[in-house]
């Protein structure tokens, strides 16, 4: 009896050998929990551009479409651009820059101000009043209130002022910026544009 029990127990252990703890078993090893801010910067810049063959180009009358199979030339405006997801990545970029212990004023935070100004004003030009002050807070605020277009622009100008000052002061110091696909990481170019 005991001989068999020992054997059975051994079999059970062999087949269910788990070297990982319960928490380790549930981990997602495929995707990172933290990334360098340069990767976020790259992603944001990719979302920045307007590709050709969009409805915006048709409405701005850069081309006509007269083949019913693929579309038509009606002015059925839908919703405007939605950059809130990209703006969240801009905020994450600032967070990750802080996490890798870059100085408080660095290339990423400076450019973040510019990007925020750019995206918010672009959306506001298309849709008018949009949430801004209470937006991008995730679980803390699931129903952000709308801000007036005037307030959005006022904040945007403050950001641009601040960004300009930051970029000027950063030019003289070492450049930590990476991931720039347009202007080759040169802050001088960034400031100019």
């Amino acid at each position: 009896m005991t001989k068999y029990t020992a054997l059975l127990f051994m079999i059970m252990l062999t087949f269910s050998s788990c070297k990982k703890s319960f928490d380790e078993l549930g981990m997602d090893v495929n995707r990172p929990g933290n990334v360098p801010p340069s990767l976020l910067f790259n992603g944001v810049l990719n979302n920045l551009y307007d590709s050709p063959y969009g409805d915006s180009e048709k409405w701005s009358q850069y081309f006509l479409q007269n083949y019913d199979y693929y579309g038509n030339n009606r002015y059925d405006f839908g919703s405007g651009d939605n950059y809130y997801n990209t703006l969240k990545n801009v905020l994450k970029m600032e967070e990750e820059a802080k996490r890798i212990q870059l100085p408080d004023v660095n290339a990423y935070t400076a450019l973040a101000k510019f990007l925020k100004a750019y995206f918010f004003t672009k959306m506001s030009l298309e849709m008018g009043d949009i949430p801004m002050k209470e937006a991008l807070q995730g679980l803390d605020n699931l129903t952000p209130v709308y801000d007036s277009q005037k307030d959005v622009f006022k904040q945007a100008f403050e950001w641009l002022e601040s960004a300009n000052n930051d970029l000027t002061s950063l030019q003289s110091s070492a450049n930590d910026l990476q991931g720039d696909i347009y202007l080759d990481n040169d802050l001088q170019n960034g400031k100019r544009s």
Partner: protein
Amino acid sequence: MRKLYTLLMIFLLVEISAFAQKMNIEGTIKTSKGEALPGSIVLIKGSPGGVSAGMDGKFYIKAQNGEILVVSFIGYETQEITISNQSIINIIMKETAQQLNEVVVTALGIEKQKTNLGYSISDINGNEVVKARDQNPITGLTGRVAGLSVGQSPEMLRKPNVLLRGNELNLYVVDGVPISSDTWNISPDDIQSYTILKGPTASALYGSRGQNGAILITTKKGSGKKGFSVEFNTSNSWDNGFLAFPRNQKEYGGGENCLYAFGDGKGGGLNDNDYDVWGPKFRGQLLPQYDGIYHPDETFTTTFPGGLEYTGHIEPTPYLARGKNNLKNFLQTGFQTTNNISVSSTGDNYNLRLSLSNSYQQSIIPNMDLNIYNFNIYGSYNISRRLKVEGNINLNRQGSENFPDVDYGPNSIIYNVATWTGADWDVNDPKIRGIWQEGKVGTQSVFAEYQRYHNPWFMSYEWLRGHHKTDTYAYVSANYKIDDHININLRSQISTYNLLRTERMPFSAHPYGREENSGDYREDHRNLFDNNTDIQIIFNYSVKNFLNISGLAGGNIRLFNYNSNFTTTDYLNIPNVYSFSNSKNPVQSNNFESTMGVYSGYGSVDLGFGKFATLALTARADKSSALLPSKNTTFVYPSVSISTAINQYVKLPEVISYFKLRGSFASVRGASTSESIGTAPFNTITAVGGGSSNSIYGYPLGYGNNYLSPYGGPNFNLVTPYNISKDYNNQAAAGFSGNLVDPNIKASNRVNFEGGFDLRLFKNRVGFDFTVFQYLDGPSILANSISSTTGYETYYINALKTRKTGFEASLSVSPVRNASGLQWDVVLNYDTYKEVYQELPAGQEIYQRFFKVGDRVDKLYSSDFWRDSNGQIINDNNGKPIANPVPQYLGDLNGKFRWALINKLNYKQFSLAFQFDGNVGGVMVDYLHNKTMRGGSNIETVKGAFGVARDLDDQNAGDPNWKGSYVGEGVVVSNNVPIEYDSETGAITNYSSLQFESNTTTTQVQDYISKYYNISRANLMSKTYTKLREVTISYDLPANLLEKTGIGKCTISLVGRNLIYFYANKNFTDVDLDQYNYGTGSTGLQSPTTRRFGFNINVVF
């Protein structure tokens, strides 16, 4: 004193002699079918106490010669056996005529008497399904079980859609152990019986995997009788005749607005690239075509009827319908053969069975076939009277060098031959069959067009997709009988597969996203390893004759591991060298890995109150790592069921031979897992046409089918990391997850109430089983949409409750049961269900834009026409219909009910069986109809008013002033007032200010149809259909013929499957509804379905 002493001596003597003569008696109690009867009571007549038979029907008792053993069990005739010098007494119990006494296999492989079950269960003998065989063991179950819907796919290697009460079933259990299966890794010849557990109560012991029920398969374990036996089976069938086939016109060829001239097939001619089938009519007129002779120094001018001229270097040839039946001529006869040989041996202490099968299928599409090899070995050995060990390994290998992918796109035969090219080219033309252009073998193919479409022979013979999968499932178990009432079971089981899929895309192939014509090579590797180890204590006690307590308590550890890798070249340098080293641009690769651990404890108790009732209780607790990082990783769920056979204790009218009531309740929880997984989970590859993805269903290409393989592991929906993609120039970019997750999120929930009865009348000549059920699903783990201004798109919370109610009924009648041997049995199955929203997420009145509490969850909202108050279609000022900007309710996706009628006639050695089944109700959009109408290849475009107008368009081809002749039905707004509508419902709000008049604007047929048939309403098809599913004639060779050959039994059957497809509206007979048995808004493309004829020979030695 002396008298007392004598008395004492006599007494003692008698005692001693009695004691001396008490023997150990053992035996096995079985039914006349050879199944064990656990729990049978064995008493010695006149003595107190007794024993009950164990799980395998074995009993041990001490008795002496002359004593009478009384053996009894509910539903069987009690037997009395006088002991006379036997030490082994095997008893066969006869059923009393009245009730159902079959033993069925229930959850965890436990056999129980069907009469004691409080929930709905169906069992089917494997041999019945094998006779009318299908290569796939599950497809043969179509229509046989009310509530089970099997939607067969016409594509090779695609698994059938198996639904139980409308939910996809993915728990397959073989001999008590769950396996990972896509249904192709089980050999039909090894199956002894199927048990279908229809609801959560039945499968509560399997935990969250059993939420939607389960199919339990019991494999053959030897013939049951002592000795050696061999069984051989061969099944062969051919495909002949089409049921559903695309309906193409053969009057007009490729082109646009009746204009076409071949230049280079890439836009150098007139509408000669990526064209529709709206080209010129076949009138024998001279036109430059793909196989015309090219003259470098000479040009030719073609003038179209409307005045337009085209000048080019290709000599015009007569434009005729050379390829009137391209698709039919291209497809070949399909063929399937399955052969199996099995050897089994049974002895006193052991049982052994070996089985080897090979299944070969040749597709109706040329150069595509599939080979499946299956090897199964089972052995059991009784080491001692108390200890038994068992083991089983099943090895399955699927291999195909080339299988079809007909999903919508240039990679699909149906797309190329039946949708987007016309009859102007002939599939049997030697140049087209030759595939390659002269001097350019391997680099440039021949076809009528060179930008978007492909030569079908090229697609079948040069563009190869390989699939090789090795599937293994195995278990080892040991059972130790502590005593007659308790035994302990220890088992470890694995289910694992290794899959390799490849694609060799040659030069000259140009599907979506791969327009450079420079070929590609891709590999998709997937490996899954799932291990379950169980320990169970199984007990069976009887209290007097009245109460029987049986059940088990157990624990399970499940460890799961999966990894996959998808790698592809980014174009090739050298043609025909399919290797990653030959990649022109950097090789792209994506990999994925996941692990999961589930620790469980479970128990079940069955209380049998004599002949009155049986009460069963189960409980299970799981701790799953798939719920991390939530704090609530443990969940508990119970079930209770009760059954009572009223006829056993109440005197019912004689006509009723059996009447049982049953009821049950179960609660099942689910973690964040998915039953299947895609090609590139969390895909980061964007260079080859696909997009990055944060789901396990990610797909890296822009075309083709995303093959889903069985999974069952975590889907990481509750984890919020960064996602990487390579958006620009192969550089990595990151984006944060768009999901928010409630940190206290819990497992999802399903509560099931079920009740029903089983009735048998006229000595079992008429049977009626009825079950009514209700599933309360929720709160589920819901991906709830939130305002994107928060920066996130989805918030995972426990919310949303739905209620599904339905019932199943099965009526079986034996109108004829003759003494001469004629027997006729009829079975009619019926099932229906409906699911509605019961509770929406907090604070929401509307869900997913249109649904309110009480609405069916399967309402189809899609595009519809705008109509005036008289129901007339409103057109715009160009004479084309306006689509309502708000999607409208078009119908329900699921049918009202499903039914099946199965007839069986037996006369001596002959039997004839035929089956009809079908679905009533439900709607769906026919995607192929949409594309063939808008593309101009559908036969409806040349009939009736369309046909007349199309001909006129052709007579005016190229005339810039020709405005067409077709006048669309309906009205136009005549007073220039813009239409105002409600943005939520799409209803027009200013009817009073609008004025309408009949539409008089003419259009060209192509433009009108392109607009009209883009609206879902125009392609909406009903899902009501009926099929003559199968006809089987079989003959058992008589015993006297076989006497000398040594053959024990030989059966020959002739089989016809999928014989007739009844569908009301012929416009939609381009789709076979079998594979759309689930609620889906739109069809895809499918290969034509065929009739199948074959024969089956079964020999037992």
